[in-house]
């Protein structure tokens, strides 16, 4: 659905994109992660027909951004990283303006706008001035706006930036809905875990080059493979060490009697992990807490993709 071919972009003598190649199949939610200045917004702007490529091309549903930008605009819903709203317009009127801008007939707009506001959980704000919405609400409104002409492809530049955790969970829910609607979505972020929550596939952009690409499922299975577990105790640790040593999937036990803590790596499933916790808490050494250490998603990601695509 999105087909980026040898796309390069230079700003003067500075080359922001180096012959980027990327193909994204229909119905995929694809996340692009990269540090500040990696070229995410540059790529997205080109796909949104706002910036001409220096060389190469990108096709959206077969339409070239170079040769038929009008057709691309019809197929793409774009949400920029920074955007403003028209003050003095109400939420409904705001969406109505863009509906009109996409040539949607007047009689169909009311229902459409109602549906979109519901999708982004803003139904109760339909009669409120856009200006008075919170940042997260504006972001959701902008997302609704980018969906107004029912595009096949969505290009969302950091849609979750600046959102609080709750709003991010909501954003994830919306992405699920979009996936159910069979949209092809391209999202950027510089936070990998945030993207991993929303995407099917992830690509890493580094200084204008795609250096890695992998499916989120693979990353997760690798993440779930081996994890470090820390158990804090009320009683002495030697007893606990004896207990955990004889459990399946447990390896590399290390105890720290000073702080009454036992650490080990665990390779069982989530269910087996739950069983282990249940049985441990019945023991008399007293489990105070049982925690799974955050594995560094970035490390895992780079480890899996090492020697993969790119470079």
């Amino acid at each position: 659905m999105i087909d980026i071919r040898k796309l390069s972009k230079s700003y003067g003598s500075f080359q922001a994109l180096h012959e980027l190649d990327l193909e994204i199949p229909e119905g995929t939610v694809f996340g692009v992660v990269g540090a500040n200045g990696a070229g995410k917004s540059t790529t997205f702007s080109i796909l949104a027909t706002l910036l001409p490529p220096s060389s190469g091309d990108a096709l959206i549903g077969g339409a070239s951004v170079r040769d038929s930008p009008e057709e691309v605009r019809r197929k793409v819903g774009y949400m920029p990283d920074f955007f403003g709203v028209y003050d003095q317009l109400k939420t409904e009127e705001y969406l109505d303006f863009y509906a009109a801008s996409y040539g949607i007939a007047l009689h169909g707009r009311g229902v459409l706008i109602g549906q979109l506001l519901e999708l982004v959980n803003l139904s109760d704000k339909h009669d409120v001035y856009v200006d008075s919405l919170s940042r997260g609400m504006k972001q959701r409104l902008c997302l609704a706006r980018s969906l107004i002409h029912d595009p096949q492809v969505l290009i969302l530049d950091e849609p979750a930036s600046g959102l609080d955790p709750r709003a991010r969970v909501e954003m994830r829910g919306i992405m699920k809905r979009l996936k159910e609607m069979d949209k092809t979505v391209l999202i950027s972020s510089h936070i990998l875990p945030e993207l991993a929550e929303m995407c099917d596939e992830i690509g890493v952009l580094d200084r204008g080059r795609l250096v890695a690409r992998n499916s989120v499922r693979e990353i997760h299975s690798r993440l779930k493979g081996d994890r470090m577990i820390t158990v804090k105790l009320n009683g002495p640790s030697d007893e606990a060490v004896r207990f955990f040593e004889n459990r399946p999937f447990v390896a590399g036990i290390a105890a720290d009697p000073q702080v009454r803590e036992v650490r080990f790596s665990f390779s069982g499933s989530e269910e087996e992990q739950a069983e282990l916790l249940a049985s441990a808490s019945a023991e008399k050494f007293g489990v105070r807490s049982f925690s799974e250490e955050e594995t560094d998603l970035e490390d895992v990601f780079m480890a899996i993709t090492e020697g993969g695509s790119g470079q």
Partner: protein
Amino acid sequence: MNTKFSNPVLMKEIKLRFRSPKSFVGILFYLAAMSLFVFGFLYLMTTLDAPGTGGGFLNTEESFILFTILTYIQLALVLFITPGLTAGSISSEREKQTLNMLLTTTQTSYQIILGKLLSSIAFLALMIVSSLPIYSLVFLFGGISPAQLALMLFYFLLTTLAIGSVGVMFSTLIRKTAVAMIATYGTMLALTAVTGFLSVFTASLGFAGSSAGPSPMAHFWASINPAVVVASLLSPGSGNILSDMTGIEFPVWIIYLIFYTSLIILSVFIAVKKLRVNMKAGN
């Protein structure tokens, strides 16, 4: 409404503009000032009239003077307000970061530019139309015909559209509203003050040379000056003064019409071309 003929930008801008109380306060203030002036003029003229000369009424000549003053006030108004209304039309969307989203819609560039231009002009048009009742007081006293008034309105509209188009063009080409504003006011001053100066200057060159032949440049500069064309419309006799000066008889209003129409077409064309980037530019 038929979507083919509706212009989303135009509709939205009009909605926004007339929602803000500023617009109404502006018009109210303008009408109040104008009424005050007209009634003041009427009062002075009718009370200062020497007794026995039909006092209590405006004679035709006074009525004509009033009309002339009103016309020049409105001309000045149009000239000074139009750049302010149009020079921010595109650049302010850029500054407010709403332009990108506007440009990724399926509207044509022409639709967007035209919507911006017409919505800015609509406000001025409303201002002028709302002043018509005051204006038409002059009819009561004669000295001017409704046809003359209609023609005047047409030239106002033409002038407003032309300067407005230049404003929208600069707003498209220049990123900063402030700079676009300066460029538009500069153009306006060039068309009014500079053309007047150039006309007199080139005409005097003609006189300096012993061959006091026709001076087409002087005539041209004068013809594209809004104040001159308004004068020629108000009193066709003023055309003679000009032709005496330049030695050319060609009617001023035709040159004005052609020049300002071309200016509109050219500015709109450039604005439409430059609104969106050329995706094939490849630099």
